[in-house]
């Protein structure tokens, strides 16, 4: 055993242990940084740098065919000055809100049936069937809905064949068509997130509630639903983010009868090659998404455990 020259054995041992612990801690920290560096580099290169670039470009202005690379907030001022830009944001928020609410209302019972009523051996097959729409191209699916909802489409033909309507309903090229296309996609996404929450719920909770005299409805309302709400919120947030940023579905199914913000952004890019204005509109869209995230995160943080 080595003798310590400047101190007694006990204090020397304590110092050695502390020093060794510090070395290990530093090594762990260094190893941790080495491990996360690729991810940080990836995020910096493909997320932070493009975002900063977009924010900088949004402060430039397009004058005629030339881009003036000087700090100017006129694009942001133009957003509030032009009613059709604000209308596009309002349309985006309205459509996204409707899609999110309708998707949650449809997905929850679907996920509940999958998790609670479908026998375990059939659940994988049921989930596979549930995600079948994801296998089709998004664009093709939207055009398919256009044909289904058209005047001579399946829905109108069936309703008229059954004698329920005399004339075809106006469904394609409307907000209804856009919402339908979105809901078809997002119900499946939400079903998966809610299903995962329901499967994580220990069955004992429902049994305990029943032992205490709660009926099925009360058990669901006071036990199952509150405990699966975080999963619902995460799914709803994903729906919100993907829906508000989508361009394809409103473009194909909406018939250009009302514009959402991504369509207006595309008009700046595709027709005007106005990158600064497109950047400013994208920052506005991102601000809305960030606000939604903060609200969602706050709700998840503040709700009772």
């Amino acid at each position, binding site marked *: 055993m080595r003798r310590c020259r400047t101190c007694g054995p006990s204090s020397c041992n304590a110092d050695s242990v502390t020093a060794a612990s510090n070395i290990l801690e530093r090594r762990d920290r260094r190893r941790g940084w080495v491990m996360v560096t690729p991810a940080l580099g990836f995020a910096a290169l493909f997320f932070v740098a493009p975002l900063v670039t977009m924010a900088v470009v949004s402060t430039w202005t397009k004058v*005629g*065919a030339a881009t003036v690379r000087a700090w100017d907030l006129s694009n942001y001022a133009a957003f509030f000055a*032009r009613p*059709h830009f604000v*209308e*596009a944001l309002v349309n985006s928020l309205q459509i996204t809100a409707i899609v999110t609410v309708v998707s949650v209302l449809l997905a929850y019972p679907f996920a509940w049936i999958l998790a609670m009523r479908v026998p375990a051996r059939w659940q994988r097959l049921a989930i596979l069937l549930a995600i079948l729409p994801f296998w089709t191209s998004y664009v093709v699916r939207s*055009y398919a809905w*256009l*044909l289904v909802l*058209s*005047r*001579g489409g399946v829905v109108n033909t069936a309703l008229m064949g059954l004698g329920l309507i005399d004339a075809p309903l*106006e469904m*394609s*090229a409307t907000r209804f068509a856009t919402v339908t296309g979105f809901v078809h996609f997002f119900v499946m996404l939400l079903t998966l997130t809610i299903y995962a929450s329901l499967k994580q719920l220990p069955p004992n909770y429902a049994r305990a509630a029943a032992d205490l005299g709660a009926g099925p409805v009360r058990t669901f309302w006071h036990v199952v639903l509150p405990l699966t709400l975080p999963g619902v919120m995460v799914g709803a947030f994903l729906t919100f983010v993907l829906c508000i940023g989508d361009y394809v579905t409103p473009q*194909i199914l909406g*018939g*250009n*009868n*009302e*514009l959402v913000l991504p*369509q*207006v952004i595309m*008009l700046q*890019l*595709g*027709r*005007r*090659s106005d*990158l600064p204005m497109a950047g400013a509109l994208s920052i506005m869209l991102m601000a809305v998404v960030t606000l939604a995230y903060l609200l969602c995160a706050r709700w998840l943080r503040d709700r009772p455990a």
Partner: protein
Amino acid sequence: MTIRLAATTALALAALPAAAAEELNALLWCDHADPDFLAPFEEANDVRVNVKEYEGTGAALAILEQSQPGDWDVISIDGIDVPRAHAAGILAPLDRANLPLDAMPEAVRLMEQQEIDGELYGVTDKYGFNTISFDASRVDAAALQDMTALWSGDLGARMAVYDYYLPIIGMVALGVGIDTADISMENLPRIREALFALKDEAEQVGEVVSSQTALATGEVDVLVGGGEWITAGLSADIPTLDWIIPEQGGVFWSISMGIVAGTERPELAQAFVDYTMSPEGQAALATAECFWAMPANPAAGALLSDQEKQALRWDDQEAYLARSQLYPAPDAELDAALQDLWTEFLQR
């Protein structure tokens, strides 16, 4: 086992298409991306044509603005926008040695736009008219003779509008008595009023595929901004589809082929332009899958069937050209105003 693996690998490799010696990067309208049009050129020159489809000059300019010199070799662009593209330094001069310029109708050549300072920067390869397509089984052609019927509210037909601001604003201008060349900030309010009235009557506004689908499926009876480029390709299946140039006239459109400045393959790019203008290239382009329209080189007629020429209304072109006006060619300020107007139109 090893032999079987080697044989399988050899067969798999043999099944792969042979790699082309060169590549040509092309920024094209959808009809120019038709494999039937591109394949003969690719085979003859042992080249692979990489296509990026776009719609509208603004989109092309945005793509080029984000590209490096040499990224693109050839471009198909609205004939009327050749001067704008030249001013932006996008186009390189063409070699006219193999181009059938003398054979092309004068109104189609658009030399005033394509020739700048004695150099040729674009050559018209396809043309047609933005006017009114309709289903004759549901709408009487006589009701469409007066263009103002489109926004008067008396037509009683379901309408779609082609989603491209220049031809539609040009048509509406003609309808209210303004020549496309005279559109200005001063007379824009008159156009705006009629344009918004048109939107109130329309069921939808869509790009090429949506517009064709709407008319073909009976979703709408009339397509404002349509023409032979919408109906010709569908006429074999739906013979009741027709088009008309109303009393006030129609808007003449043309697509030009050009070489992108800074290309690293100028000879190959020129060869592609020459092929595009050859009778074979022109015939394939005229009947391209995305949309049919008249080839600029009349020599293509020898390679088209009578039925195809009938669908294109081959023999009536001179009369149509006489009754049409060029796309509006606004300056930057007016163009911004027209685009704002179009965004309002869509949002209405």
